[in-house]
């Protein structure tokens, strides 16, 4: 057996004419956090549903915990835990009873102990005996994740676990996810929040319109788009023109009166740049150093495709 907790190759899924997943391949190393990023409707949840045996794929092979999801469904189910996009807790049961239900169904030997320690860990002791219907959004998410952890599954799927949570609850969730990985659990995380992937993931794939448009570490992805640069904004086109002549590496933007100059962002090179402007008595009204973040990557990767499609449609329209 390899060290891959999840191995997917040539995965395809279509609903009628609508292709949701158009042949995707990836592997998730055991004990790592793998994040799937993508805009709404990219096919993230469909991927999770196939990997967690809720849906069957049209084509391709999917192995989870070394078992084929199509053939060894039972074994796959026994090794995974899933927290879906909508909190799947039983509203009419208390937090404790929800956890106990999971412990019973998974035939966990010392169920009481497991339930007690999970309530402690997720800071739910105070409300443990209240019905889940009275819980806040953050508490429901925590309970949902606690339910997923009963029986210590080796691989955990989190489908947009922090969507709709306030920043504090989100950070609490991140802490929990990090602890899980420290214990050796493998995490498959889907998210729309780039910060979340940047903070947590060892490896990221970007899914757009059913295809993987990029994969790598957060740093590798950031390197794929234009690097750190200095933005200089000038008062009028004459100054912009003059600046563009003395700084030939820069790219002027006539409309915004902005000059983008590639830079390594270090203080010495910045001082040299500013000195050069001074020598020619040029004054930039605004000055900022911009390093690419995952947002840039995301917009560049997922936006381009949309633009290309839009352009193509325009051309088709003109051709007619």
């Amino acid at each position, binding site marked *: 057996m390899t060290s891959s907790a999840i191995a997917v190759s040539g995965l395809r899924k279509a609903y009628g004419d609508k292709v949701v997943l158009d042949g995707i391949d990836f592997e998730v190393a055991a004990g790592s956090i793998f994040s799937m990023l993508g805009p709404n409707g990219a096919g993230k949840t469909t991927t999770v549903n196939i990997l*967690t045996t809720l*849906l069957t794929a049209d084509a391709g092979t999917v192995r989870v915990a070394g078992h084929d999801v199509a053939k060894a469904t039972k074994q796959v189910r026994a090794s995974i835990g*899933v927290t*879906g996009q909508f909190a*799947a*807790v039983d*509203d009419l049961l208390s937090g404790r009873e929800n956890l106990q239900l999971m412990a019973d169904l*998974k035939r966990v030997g010392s169920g009481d102990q497991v339930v007690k320690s999970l309530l402690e860990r997720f800071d739910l002791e105070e409300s443990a005996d209240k019905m889940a219907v009275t819980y806040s959004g953050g508490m429901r998410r925590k309970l949902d994740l606690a339910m997923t952890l009963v029986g210590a599954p080796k691989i955990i799927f989190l489908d947009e676990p922090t969507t709709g949570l306030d920043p504090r609850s989100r950070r609490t969730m991140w802490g929990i996810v990090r602890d899980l990985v420290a214990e050796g659990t493998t995490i498959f995380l889907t998210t729309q929040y780039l910060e979340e992937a940047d903070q947590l993931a060892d490896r990221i794939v970007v899914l757009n319109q059913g295809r993987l448009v990029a994969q790598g570490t957060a740093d590798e992805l950031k390197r794929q788009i234009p690097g750190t640069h200095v933005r200089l904004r000038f008062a009028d086109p004459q100054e912009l023109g003059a600046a563009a002549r003395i700084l030939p590496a820069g790219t002027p933007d006539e409309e915004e009166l902005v000059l983008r100059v590639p830079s390594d962002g270090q203080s010495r090179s910045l001082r040299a740049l500013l000195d050069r402007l001074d020598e020619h008595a040029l004054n930039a009204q605004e000055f900022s150093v911009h390093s690419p973040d995952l947002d840039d990557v995301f917009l560049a990767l997922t936006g381009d495709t949309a633009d290309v499609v839009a352009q193509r449609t325009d051309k088709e329209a003109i051709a007619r």
Partner: protein
Amino acid sequence: MSTATAPLADSAIMLRRNMKHTLRNPTTVFNAVLFPIVIMLMFVKVFGGAFSVGVDYIDYATPGLLVMAVSYGLGATATAVNDDMTKGIINRFKTMDVSRGSVLTGHVVVTTVRCLAAEAALIGVAFLMGFDPKAGAVDWLGAIGLLVLLSFGAGWLTVAMGLAAKSVETAGLGTVPLIMLPFLSSAFVPADSMGAGVRQFAEYQPFTPIIETLRGLLAGNVSGGDAVVAVAWCVGFAVVGYVWAVSTFKKRA
């Protein structure tokens, strides 16, 4: 844990869950018990005097009311099943190594238990109103057995409807025909006294043989022919409901 007993154990766990739901939602039970009693009071005390059915009206109407109590109790099941489906908890169970039918079995068994509670209350009120059955111990056992079988069969059919419904509202609406059917049967007046068309419908619809069998059992003179048809209908409900429910359950992710 052996693989053979796992589905049973899973079903028991799910049944415990459904029992807690029922106890925590007392309006469901109250509703299921109260409505048939109100109908009973209305028919026996208000309309009953005007009907001529050959025997005391309470003795004539009780079997039909018992069947009606079953069908009335089903609405709550349809909405509960649909609620489970739309809230995502079923998806959680599906991604776990839990036997497929156990969630549904839990609902069916709890429906049967709730129906029996309503039956017990209704029979109690009937006795207070002068119900005088001629049934022996075996007849009573037969009557209770038939009611259990009907609750179970109709329970499966309702679970299937609840699964198939797009929303909680349509799920509740789906069981309305089941509540209406007893009115168009021999529950309150003999089918012979109805107009053409309605009479034929009343004679051949499933509730009439079930009610007639129950009436026969409670009066101590059951007709074997009716009993066979009644049992066949109940088993038919159960089989169709089960097959429909399980296939819908597998399809809906």
